[in-house]
């Protein structure tokens, strides 16, 4: 069964450093999302992406964040200058045209020291 994959599974970085989290959505899907979950808290929406552009973003998704689909398969989230409060699990999700269900990847645990 097709699945969303994410790399790395765990990323440790120093405050102020840039990180790139990578996702490979399900191959025929057209809508892509990033969510995050701070330990013990809700899963929160960050950004959605369709047709090579951002379609919606939350208040969390400020100028330090960016997303890109550099080729036909990868979908990346970049945090330009990480802060301690960026430490969280980051989940990528995707769904197809006309489909209601979003499929989530296993997540990347980001730890900012």
């Amino acid at each position, binding site marked *: 069964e097709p699945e969303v994959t994410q790399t790395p599974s765990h990323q440790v970085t120093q405050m102020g450093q840039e990180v790139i989290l990578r996702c490979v959505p399900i191959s025929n899907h057209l809508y892509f999302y990033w969510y995050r979950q701070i330990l013990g*808290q809700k899963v929160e*929406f960050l950004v959605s992406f369709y047709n090579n552009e951002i379609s*919606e973003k*939350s208040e969390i998704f400020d100028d330090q964040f960016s997303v890109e689909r550099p080729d036909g398969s990868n979908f990346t989230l970049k945090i330009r200058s990480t802060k301690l409060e960026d430490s969280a699990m980051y989940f990528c999700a995707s769904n197809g045209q006309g489909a209601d269900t*979003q499929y989530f990847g296993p*997540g990347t*645990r980001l730890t900012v020291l």
Partner: protein
Amino acid sequence: SQKIEQNSEALNIQEGKTATLTCNYTNYSPAYLQWYRQDPGRGPVFLLLIRENEKEKRKERLKVTFDTTLKQSLFHITASQPADSATYLCALVQPTRQLTFGSGTQLTVLP
């Protein structure tokens, strides 16, 4: 925007019993609600979706109801097993397609 709440943070039940989890939302009824399962350190896994014009949906031992008058969805696991122990999340879809999740209910099924 829409808000969604899951009333119980944790629920313990005995194996074989039916677990019932509650999800309430504010404002207008969403087009549909979804239920996900999340295990520790893992991503949410889709379980069931129910639309506003559906009263009930079933999948094996799972049942979801949707009451637009009460603004509530109930999620039932019948004949529960220890392997059902996990956090269950309800989520509504915003008009702009992103999901808004509840805080989840941690279910523990005791053998």
